[in-house]
């Protein structure tokens, strides 16, 4: 699906994604689609199990005026194309439900398994109804996405400085890197809570897929050095990994911020005469 350039992400937004591992778009999806999504979920018009994996996303939910319409929104297509490019593949989806009066939070985890790629999948976390804090929603740990961990190995943790619960209006979309740490939060209300998750794989090299008009924006080095408070002494390692990630995304193998990789890559061989 062709995407108007105005719907693509900016370089500043991409730098935010590199630093935080997620982007948040509050109340992005119109109310009529949110309502239709809720109807599709309540009436089980959408399969709660996986569709055949690895198929083109475009082939799914073509007749759906809820989930399908959400995905086809130009703004959502722009986000998807900026991160994983045109013609992404469906990996899996899952309509998450947290029943009323559920007092236990889900354990912290990252999805799937240790994933050492620079290439990355994205996961859409879509909140089709208002989600106040007492209802959840999903808790994320910004800046955790580049950590090489295996799924629930992090489950003994309960709280982190800077953890971010998604408290939001209906129609909010969070788009996360596949490595982001997250967990569903308790639902202390008397209503069922929904969150629709969708994982997508790229089919093209993830190289400057967004609107790069602001590629040299002076904010970008500072964004890449955003310090999430829970890091502690590992913050500098995170910055180094973000610089590498930015090099991958921009194709600029010499990119650096604040001289960090330049310094440790400096191995001169010239013989002084």
């Amino acid at each position, binding site marked *: 699906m062709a995407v108007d350039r105005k719907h693509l992400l900016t370089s500043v937004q991409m730098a935010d994604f590199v630093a935080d591992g997620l982007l948040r778009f509050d109340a992005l999806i119109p109310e009529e689609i949110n309502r239709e999504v809720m109807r599709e979920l309540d009436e089980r018009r959408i399969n709660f199990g996986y569709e055949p994996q690895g198929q083109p996303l475009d082939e799914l939910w073509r007749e759906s005026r809820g989930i399908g319409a959400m995905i086809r929104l130009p703004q959502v297509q722009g986000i998807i194309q900026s991160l994983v490019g045109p013609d992404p593949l469906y990996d899996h989806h899952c309509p998450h439900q947290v029943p009323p009066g559920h*007092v236990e939070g889900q354990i912290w985890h990252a999805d799937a398994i240790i994933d050492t790629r620079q290439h990355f999948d994205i996961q859409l976390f879509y909140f089709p109804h208002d989600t106040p804090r007492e209802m959840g929603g999903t808790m994320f740990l910004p800046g955790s996405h*580049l950590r*090489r961990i295996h799924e629930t190995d992090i489950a003994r*943790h*309960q709280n982190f400085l800077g953890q971010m619960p998604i408290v939001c209006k209906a129609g909010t979309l969070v788009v996360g890197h596949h490595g982001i740490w997250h967990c569903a939060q308790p639902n202390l209300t008397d209503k069922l809570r929904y969150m629709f998750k969708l994982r997508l794989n790229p089919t093209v090299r993830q190289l400057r897929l967004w609107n790069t008009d602001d590629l040299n924006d002076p904010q970008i080095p500072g964004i890449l050095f955003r310090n999430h408070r829970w890091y502690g*002494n590992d913050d500098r*390692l995170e910055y180094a*990994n973000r610089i590498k990630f930015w090099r991958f995304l921009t194709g600029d193998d010499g990119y650096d911020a604040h001289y960090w990789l330049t310094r440790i890559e400096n191995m001169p061989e010239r013989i002084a005469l």
Partner: protein
Amino acid sequence: MPDLRQKILILYSRTPDLNSEIGSWAIYDGTGKERHTTGDSDTPPYASVFAAMQDGWRVIQFPQLFPAYPGMELSTSYLRFEYILEKMEEVDGG
């Protein structure tokens, strides 16, 4: 004899210095008096491991420091400076 149960406090210290700020925390209470789950607080129960010690918590595990594996020097994964502390507390009727 008092009937005691172990209460565990896990504190991730931002550096190996026991005075440094806490980045992550968890409590598992063997007495059953407290129940904790993910996301149930936004501020750590103590400012540092040392502050917890001053409140009577005993450190029962220190994080060990390992050199990075060759080729993995810049990789990050689990929280490295995690201290485990305990208190023994009496259960009701003990």
